[in-house]
């Protein structure tokens, strides 16, 4: 699959992983001792409920992988859009929420209504068709956005900063629209309780396992598209150099349109799976996720097609594992800390290539 990703890059990525892992083990052994010594009652109870200390670590590592995969789904589109157009799309978080909310709208058994319409009704579709329709509508929204906003701005050669400001405005507009429509309280896509199974030290629900499988399949699908299809290779060509792509006969605007559709659809899928995983989603959950998505994409290597995946997994794992020692409120701050540290050593991100000179 990744035949053309050159080996040295993978080696470097592996190296970063290994160093991070060694770091973790070191902290675990040292931190574990400190923990045992401290008489903090809260630490004691968490440790007691999940048996030994090592198990919490494994459980959180696993949770981190799950969260990382979902984050990757959400951010891979952000990365593709950045790669092909140069736009940092601040409205990408709302695409995540939007997909989940459409699915909620279609699947819930409660009465729902549309903005400005005075009556309410229930659609009550089963979850899977609702999710498929939700993803399709979101993908359509991506198409529409590119058609009426982004392609017009590109054609008029509006500079990137201005386009970015438009995307910030769009983000605010969308988040408020979603709040107005769905309300301020988190909603759940399904009311059934996901029974947890115990696999060794890790406990996980069936829905989460399914979500992981879906996320992995979707991400492999993206990699297959980029690596093995002509359209995908053309997408990478546009990321490399749009003018040269056009000079080679590629219709750059059609490629970008496809990227928008894909990005929006993947973000929606990410949002739906996230809503299932964390058992509910609020109107601004996607908005909150945006910073992590940017962090993941930057960490992996801006514009690098697989950077979003690597970056997301690291951010997800760091955020979850840090909660073993630090209060959960700090987990995103820790992830951002890691971002800064990595960038100090590899300014171009983990997979990013330092541009050769001349």
């Amino acid at each position, binding site marked *: 699959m990744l*035949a*053309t990703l*050159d080996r040295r890059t993978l080696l470097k990525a592996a190296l970063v992983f290994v160093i991070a892992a060694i770091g973790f083990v070191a902290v675990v052994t040292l931190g574990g001792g400190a923990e045992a010594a401290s008489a903090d009652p809260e630490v004691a109870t968490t440790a007691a409920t999940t048996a030994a200390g090592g198990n919490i670590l494994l459980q959180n590592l696993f949770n981190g992988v799950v969260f990382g995969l979902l984050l990757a789904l959400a951010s891979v589109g952000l990365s593709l859009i950045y790669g092909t157009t140069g736009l940092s799309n601040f409205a990408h978080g709302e695409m995540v929420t939007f997909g989940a909310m459409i699915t909620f709208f279609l699947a819930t058994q409660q009465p729902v209504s549309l903005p400005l319409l005075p009556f309410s009704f229930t659609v009550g579709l089963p979850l899977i068709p609702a999710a498929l329709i939700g993803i399709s509508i979101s993908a359509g929204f991506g198409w529409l956005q590119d058609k009426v906003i982004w392609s017009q701005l590109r054609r008029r050669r509006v500079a990137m900063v201005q386009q970015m400001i438009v995307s910030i405005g769009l983000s605010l507009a969308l988040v408020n629209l979603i709040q107005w429509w769905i309300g301020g309280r988190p909603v759940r896509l399904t009311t059934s309780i996901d029974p947890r199974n115990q696999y060794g030290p890790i406990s996980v629900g069936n829905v989460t396992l399914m979500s992981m499988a879906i996320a992995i399949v979707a991400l492999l699908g993206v990699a297959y598209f980029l690596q093995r299809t*002509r359209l995908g*290779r*053309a997408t*990478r*060509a546009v*990321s*490399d*150099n749009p*003018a*040269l*792509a*056009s*000079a*080679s*006969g*590629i*219709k*750059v605007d059609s490629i970008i349109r496809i990227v928008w559709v894909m990005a929006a659809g993947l973000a929606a899928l990410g949002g739906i799976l996230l809503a299932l995983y964390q058992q509910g989603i609020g109107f601004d959950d996607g908005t909150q996720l945006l910073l992590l998505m940017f962090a993941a994409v930057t960490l992996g290597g801006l514009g690098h097609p697989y950077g979003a995946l690597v970056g997301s997994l690291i951010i997800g794992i760091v955020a979850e594992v840090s909660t073993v020692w630090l209060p959960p409120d700090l987990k995103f701050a820790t992830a951002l800390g890691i971002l800064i540290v990595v960038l100090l050593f590899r300014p171009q991100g983990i997979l990013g*290539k330092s541009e*050769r000179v*001349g």
Partner: protein
Amino acid sequence: MTDHPVILDADDLIAGYLPGINILNGCSMEVREGELIGIIGPNGAGKSTFLKALFGLVPVRDGSVTLAGEDITNLRADQLVKRGVGFVPQTNNVFPSLTIEENLEMGAYQAHKSFKKQMTKIGDLFPVLVERKNQRAGSLSGGERQMVAMARALMMDPQVLLLDEPSAGLSPVRQDETFVRTRDINRTGVTVIMVEQNARRCLQICDRGYVLDQGTSAYTATGQELLKDPKVIELYLGTLGA
């Protein structure tokens, strides 16, 4: 050549990158079928801009470009590729994160069915490229990149080929090769418009040369005439060298 029909006609082009700043101020050129045209001129004269304006990569504000009688002013580059025009830019002329083979595949994007056949043809012209087809283009040397760029532009069998300094950065032997190859491609019936800093070499092989200065096509004559023109020698060629 003078009896051949005009294939490309640029008339009084005004073009530029930033609003309100024109780089080309009335640039004209008439190219007949099968000609090999050389464009020379000092740095910053607008040679690259002129090729890009012909090829729809820089917006033309006034004037017109026609290809075989059809107006192609401001058509998108991919539409020109479809009409048989190929372009090798001066800089950034490969896709660095794609392999050599993928670069060539992009060159044949609109005719992907004939990709295999074209690859064998390229294999004859540039055997190295086929041998190293799985190497990332970003890891190639400048000269090797020029080869990839040229091969990419040839994948669609263009009727008109625009080359922006194809010999830049090559060793003398490779430069010779490039000029001979360009001449050979031209002999197969392809109309070639090349911008060159290696002006003497370029004027020796081309049918006609244009001297571009400050965004206007100052004058045109056959290559041999320009080589002897005292004004061209003084302003541009310099007096040293053969």
